[in-house]
């Protein structure tokens, strides 16, 4: 049984196929990289997995059970938490309150949420900005904060959409280290990134998409050596 699996997911936007039958599976405790050229459908796939978009066809299985009528709220409560490509934080609330909110929303008691938020703030090196409004944090700090919000209550699976994009190398390392540690403790993660070195270093397995289909999935090294994958990247923009 897989933690999360998708079967034949399809989605079109006004006749244009963004996803054309995507099938994959992620095992418990796996840390999987999702790669693919720009416009290959990675974000669209994540939007469907997290209930933000309704697929035209196909189904999603969580713990082997099909999920129907998924909404973002239901996804979150069943343990699918995500980070957005364009950072989403609650701009007029303090960084700490952002974390506490995320914790309470998933059922933590107030006190427990506060304690947990403080731990995360420390682990993510946000202590010095914890009481500032999130909107006043730097772009990288906001990414870290949003990242932290996904782990207030350890999710069944975390979907991270380009967490490392345009982030200072130090913060990138903080996040990578955080992911490594959680992964070692059994956390399941799907991480989208264009940063190949990080993917190679972090993820044992990877999925490569192009033009709305899965080109290759398996061991990261093998995926990257796949000639279709190389072609997709050399071919530049996806058609």
């Amino acid at each position, binding site marked *: 049984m897989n933690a999360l699996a998708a079967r034949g997911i399809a989605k079109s*936007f006004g006749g244009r196929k963004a996803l054309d039958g995507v099938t994959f599976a992620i095992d418990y405790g796996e840390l999987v990289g999702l790669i693919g050229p720009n416009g290959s459908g990675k*974000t669209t796939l994540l*939007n469907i997995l997290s209930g*933000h*978009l309704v697929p035209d066809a196909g189904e999603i299985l969580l713990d082997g059970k099909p999920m129907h009528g998924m909404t973002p709220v239901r996804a979150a409560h069943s343990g699918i938490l995500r980070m*957005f490509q364009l950072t989403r934080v609650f*701009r*007029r609330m303090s960084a700490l309150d952002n974390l506490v909110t995320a914790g309470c929303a998933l059922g933590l008691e107030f006190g427990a949420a506060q304690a947990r938020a403080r731990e995360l703030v420390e682990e993510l090196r946000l202590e010095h900005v914890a009481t500032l409004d999130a*909107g006043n944090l730097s772009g990288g700090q906001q990414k870290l904060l949003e990242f932290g919000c996904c782990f207030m209550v350890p999710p069944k699976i975390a979907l991270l959409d380009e967490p490392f994009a345009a982030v200072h190398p130090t913060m990138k390392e903080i996040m990578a280290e955080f992911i490594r540690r959680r992964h070692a403790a059994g956390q399941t993660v799907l991480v989208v990134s264009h940063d190949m070195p990080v993917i190679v270093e972090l993820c044992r397995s990877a999925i490569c998409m192009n033009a709305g289909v899965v080109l290759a999935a398996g061991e990261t090294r093998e995926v990257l050596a796949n000639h279709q994958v190389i072609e997709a990247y050399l071919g530049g923009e996806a058609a």
Partner: protein
Amino acid sequence: MPGQRVLNIDLFVNGLIMGSFYALMAIGLTLIFGLLRIVNFAHGEFYMIGAYAYTLAALKLGLSVWLGLPVAFAVGGIVGWLTERTLMRPLYAGYASWGLMKDEYAVVVTFALSLLLINLVDKVIGPYAVRGPGLVDIPRIALGPVMLTGHKLIATIVAFAMIIATALFIRYSLWGRQIRAVAQNRLGASLAGIDATKTSSIIFTLSGALAALSGALLAPIINTTPDVGSFPAIKSYVIVVLGGMGSIPGSIVASLLLGVLESFGAVYISYDYRDAFGLAILILVLLLRPQGLFGEKGREV
């Protein structure tokens, strides 16, 4: 029944006439909505200012009524331009750093501007109603079975001429093409070297001028008071929504339709509730066609 038919024709023609004034009013609001995705709640006050400018130019300054129209047009344009300069700029210039969100800012600021203009005029000119002189002094013209005052006929012709001129301007002039480019894609247009801020400035100026002209044309028909702008403003909201949120041809059709519907509704359904019809339609359209309004929703994620 011949009497019935004459009445119906009369209602239809008068509906079209009101619709033409509504269109003149609503085009500006439509343009602003199309460009900035905000509703200007002070739009009715542009109308009110035009009505006063026309009436006072004729009665107090003794200008010819034919000069009164361009005066109103110019005054409205200036007010529109000033509004953009002083209040709208933060919406697109360096506004990300703002605590207040864009939509909230636009609602509150234009709402307050409306309050400000109404009370300023109330204080400076006075709360009593004034009525402008007609463009011509012909009490009755028979157009087939329909009786009109000379002013109404000429004002309608002017209104239609201005609507057509505006539509041509947007369609064919360089500025007009820039406006449409910015409305479609603000970022793309600015990358192509179009000055989006200047475009917004033109839009607000034009919007103020057209609404003011509409006020001037109606000043001899509807008594002008400081709060006279609320009725045409509400019509304009209805029209912008009915007309497809930002489409000029759509809003012209919607204006004429609304004019005719109200004209018949007031006689055949209920005079007292006539103002409520349009509003009820507005709510229904907003609720039943949200996908049309939120076409970009998925993109936000």
